């Protein structure tokens, strides 16, 4: 009750676990497609569809392009996962550059094409892969793998003990809580 009185949130953990699992399945499917696999099994199609829809909600730049209304629980899940998604993109700066993107506009265009590809692939056979080539599919798969693993690490702490008695940062009433997330290049 002191700092306790808490309900260890198994529901939230289950939701995040499912999100990670679906992203992992979608990533594996994309890798197989990039390697030339033609047939997509039904659970894989569902994972692609779900991932496409979720990414349209997750990514604020893409959100306006989706015509689907955002349901309450989807909005909550997206709020919980969104910082992880952006952090993963930042960590993948090199791979994004290697894929030929040099500015933010190109990145945004790629991401929206990627989400659309997930949705169109889920609906049609894998013969039509949307607008992305094999390398771009691999990059998309890499992003999904990265987000999936990051979510898993958030809930299992990568097998390490959860920090229960670490010192906390001082709370500053006037700050807007911003810390540089990475050094500028």
């Amino acid at each position, binding site marked *: *009750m002191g700092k306790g009185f808490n309900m260890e949130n198994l529901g939230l953990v289950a939701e995040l676990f499912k999100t990670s699992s679906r992203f992992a399945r979608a990533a594996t499917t994309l890798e197989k497609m990039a390697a030339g696999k033609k047939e997509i099994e039904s659970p894989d199609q569902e994972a692609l569809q779900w991932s496409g829809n979720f990414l349209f909600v997750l990514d604020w730049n893409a959100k306006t392009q989706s015509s689907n209304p955002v349901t309450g629980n989807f909005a909550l899940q997206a*709020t919980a996962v969104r910082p992880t998604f952006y952090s993963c993109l930042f960590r993948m700066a090199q791979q994004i550059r290697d894929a030929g993107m040099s500015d933010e506009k190109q990145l945004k265009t790629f991401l929206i094409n990627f989400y659309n590809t997930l949705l169109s692939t889920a609906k049609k056979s894998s013969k039509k892969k949307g607008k992305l080539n094999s390398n771009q599919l691999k990059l998309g798969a890499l992003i999904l793998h990265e987000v999936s693993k990051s979510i898993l690490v958030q809930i299992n702490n990568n097998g390490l003990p959860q920090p229960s008695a670490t010192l906390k940062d001082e709370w500053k009433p006037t700050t807007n809580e911003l810390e540089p997330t990475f050094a500028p290049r």
Partner: protein
Amino acid sequence: MNSSPLSRPDEASWHEKVRRRELFRCLDNLARLANNVQITEDFASKTPLKLATLIGVTAELLKKHILTIAPSQDLEQINTMIGFITPHLRYVERARVAQTPWSIIQSAEELLRFASNSKSYFIIRPTWAYNYSIIGEFVSFYREILSCLAWFPLDEWKAKLELNNDESIYCISFPRIERDNCLLHVNWGHEVGHILVERWINDYFGTLWATNEAGIKSRIEEHVKQNIPPGDPLFKELVIQEAVANQMRSTMEAARHGLVELLCDRIGVHIFGLSALAASMEFAARFALDVSPLQSSNYPPWRYRLRMLLQHCAPDLNDNKEIGYPNADIRALIEWMRTGQRLTQTRIDIQNIESNVITREAYNFISSHIDGAAQTITSMLPIELARPYRLHERHVFISQLVSRIRKGVPPNEICHLSDNPASLQDILSAAWAFKMNEIAENPSWGNPNEYDLLFRLVLKGCECSYVQSEWKKRHPIE
């Protein structure tokens, strides 16, 4: 010796080989541990055995398929699952008779099940940490994570569990150091509130959040843009979005967690009345009252919580001369509560909340929705608990129970041989009234023997009242 780095496929193959082998071994061990604990331990109720069965069956079926059917990409997830479910065995182990205030377990579990209006089972176990908590729900958690494995035989799993669909298992923890201090166990009312509040959160919170999200986002964005963090030119706008996304998540967490805790407080005080407030005040006195939610795992400041509890209890804090309230046995408790009212006139907690954009937005959200939410959640309670427990309606009976404690008699019934067992709420109210009376009359009251006598009388009162109630149910007077 070949010292070249492993290729990605080779690394994946190495991972798979080790994982499959070691996870099989761990699952085998887990299944055996879960079975052994059922044979060798002694429990106050059958609930711990149900959780052990859940763990054992899950481990057994994962083990059965991990070597042959599970695809390699699922092994990391299975490892995470084992990481989740293995520690759950400690809840079973710690629920042994010797570890718990066994005389109150059955009556408490019955009230908790009744209040949560469900077929829930409760494991009650001590924890060395100084807090009360509830963890669950286990059955649905296991079902949800197992459903991520397309190959897992869920139907076989359900059949082996022999649990109906709506049956659920929770574990309530209490501080080991307070095992016999049943006055503080009133906090279980707050914990059972979590079950009802969780239902409300699942049904309504997302929709409310989605409705308010745009406004909150625009205010946070404005705040972030006052101090734009440096970043890679490749991600110029995304850096701002990430900062906003981080603060939005913090706001959502502070709002959800704060709302949940305040609503659970409300349920606890609705069921137990002033006893719940007294327990919270005593608990809060150990800690700083105005700590920001951002520094205390999103818990509302204690002063904020006490203020809301006191508002709910206001009808019990006023004198009512017509009915002679509060009578002499209760007056000391009421006076102590009134100190709480003065305590909450200070508003440092609110100033702290207002001074940060995350907590300001979160608590604006909470203030807008808490009354409606409390109304909906209270309506989930069974009809017998629909009205809040009010001390001023029970004060005559409570006075009789206080007299019994004073005479060294367990406060299990109203009047002697009256065929009227006291409720858990009445017994605990009397216990609090007695304690505050004793302290008011003698500030040095409270040596180990005095506490021990009070706790034993009250625990015995709870046990006898439960036995008497059960007897009445089975042998109704014609």
